[in-house]
């Protein structure tokens, strides 16, 4: 789906942000990318739909090379992106106008556009806000509209750049369950995050440090050991507790059954009692 081969990227001030990095993302995967501030995770994500082009190496999305300008439109239709600050990407006066913007630019019929807007707003549960102005919405609602605008393009891949970081815990849960649904329905999800408790949903975790990949595997494997310093965040309390219990032999130390959530830890403890 996405083939990244030996790419490097330098910012205009010559800082090396990505350092000879290779990564393949398969169709239908939910890949989370974590790491400390400045490790290059958002920069890497921006290579996956051609917002940034590598200084060396290649990025191929669904068979299309991002360095080929004639493919860029198709690449961005294939891989949609939702950003950290939803307010920064609105262009419409109303929610409807905003969601319709993408499909309109594809030259679709009015009927098709209407259908796509209906369906996308329904998918994120915002159909009641069709005629509201995006600015009047809460942070969580804005982020849902931003996601609907991406869904209206019917992308195969959606790239999420720290989309929950400006949201309160309730809206965060809403957005995560929407993403989980999209993944279950076959969308490939690449999810950059700082919040390790959100990784429970991912089936693969990539940890970056200084522009390179230092871990690539199932979140259970990676979070059950390794120095949390690398993840750019403290371990969520439940995971830290589980690690201490595993270290003391009170729950199985096997990484494949390591609990990542409160519900999972409760189950493991019930089995060991």
């Amino acid at each position: 789906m996405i083939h990244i081969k030996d790419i490097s990227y330098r910012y205009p001030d010559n800082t090396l942000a990505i350092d000879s990095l290779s990564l393949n993302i398969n169709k239908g995967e939910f890949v989370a990318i974590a790491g400390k501030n400045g490790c290059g995770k958002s920069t890497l994500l921006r290579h996956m739909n051609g917002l940034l082009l590598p200084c060396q190496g290649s990025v191929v999305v669904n068979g299309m090379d991002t360095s080929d300008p004639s493919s860029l439109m198709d690449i961005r239709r294939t891989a949609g992106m939702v950003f950290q600050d939803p307010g920064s990407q609105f262009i419409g006066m109303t929610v409807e106008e905003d969601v319709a913007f993408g499909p309109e630019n594809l030259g679709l019929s009015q009927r098709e556009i209407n259908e796509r807007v209906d369906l996308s707003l329904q998918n994120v549960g915002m159909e009641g806000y069709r005629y509201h102005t995006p600015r009047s919405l809460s942070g969580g609602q804005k982020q849902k509209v931003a996601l609907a605008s991406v869904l209206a393009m019917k992308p195969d891949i959606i790239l999420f750049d720290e989309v929950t970081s400006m949201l309160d815990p309730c809206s965060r849960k809403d957005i995560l369950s929407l993403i989980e649904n999209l993944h279950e329905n076959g969308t490939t999800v690449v999810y950059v995050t700082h919040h390790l408790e959100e990784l429970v949903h991912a089936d693969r975790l990539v940890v970056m440090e200084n522009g390179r990949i230092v871990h690539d595997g199932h979140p259970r494997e990676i979070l059950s050991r390794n120095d949390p310093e690398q993840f750019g965040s403290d371990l969520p309390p439940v995971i830290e507790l589980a690690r201490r219990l595993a270290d003391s032999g009170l729950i199985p130390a096997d990484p494949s059954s390591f609990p990542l959530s409160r519900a999972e830890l409760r189950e493991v403890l019930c089995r060991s009692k």
Partner: protein
Amino acid sequence: MSIEVKDLSFCYNRGTSLEKRALDNVSLSIGKGEFVLIGGEIGSGKSTLVRHFNGILKPQSGSVTVSGMASTDRDVRHKAGLLMQYPQKQLFGRTVFEDVSFGPSNFGIKGDALEQRVADALEQAGLGRDIGSLSPFSLSGGQMRLVALAGVLAMQPEYLILDEPTSGLDPENRSSLLATLKELHLSGISVVVVSHQVCEFLPLADKVILLDNGWVSFNGTPVEYVRSVSSPLPEITLLMKDLIREGFDVRDDILSIDDAFEEIVNALEKRGAGQDE
């Protein structure tokens, strides 16, 4: 010496059709040296309350005193320093030094004494004095917030009041800010934090006050909080409550990982011993 709030009421747009009551007969006390967490939903009156502590808002009825001084006295700002939400938006200086020194220099402190104050404040905020010559706008969002914090600390307040200090911070900056607040509290400063993310601050707090529509709906210790309030609760506390439902003999008022670990170890041992017999 403490912050004493007696029968405080406050309405926005009083006497107009847009009148909105924000505080309704609030009485409470914040002791010197305490770490107090003020929680509640958006619009519950938390920010309105703490803006009375350093005289930004004046009581419409009732009274607020800080270490014996009425909050209407201009000098109350020496005693209680307020760090507002998104304080990085208030930075204005060409250098960090200029920004942090603004408060004390307005109160007539200059020369070496001023330099020392700024250096101490930057140190306390966890920034180090070398940053003084940089432009605050060249810093990251998290560092800018710490510069704003240093600006408040440079006034050497007895009470440090912070309105939603972690909102919008990434986990890395958040945990370092929490560590800084813990240090400041240990050094003897009274800390008052306003946050709707109550769980984040529970392990640090001596006292929790919840506001609901301008009323004090809860005032007690963190342990009393997790026993009597149904949400929001920390994941660790929720886990213990889950385990109790599953028949584990553990306490329901656990806040820290250390305590949770100990409780689970004991519960499993007891059960093991029970099965051996």
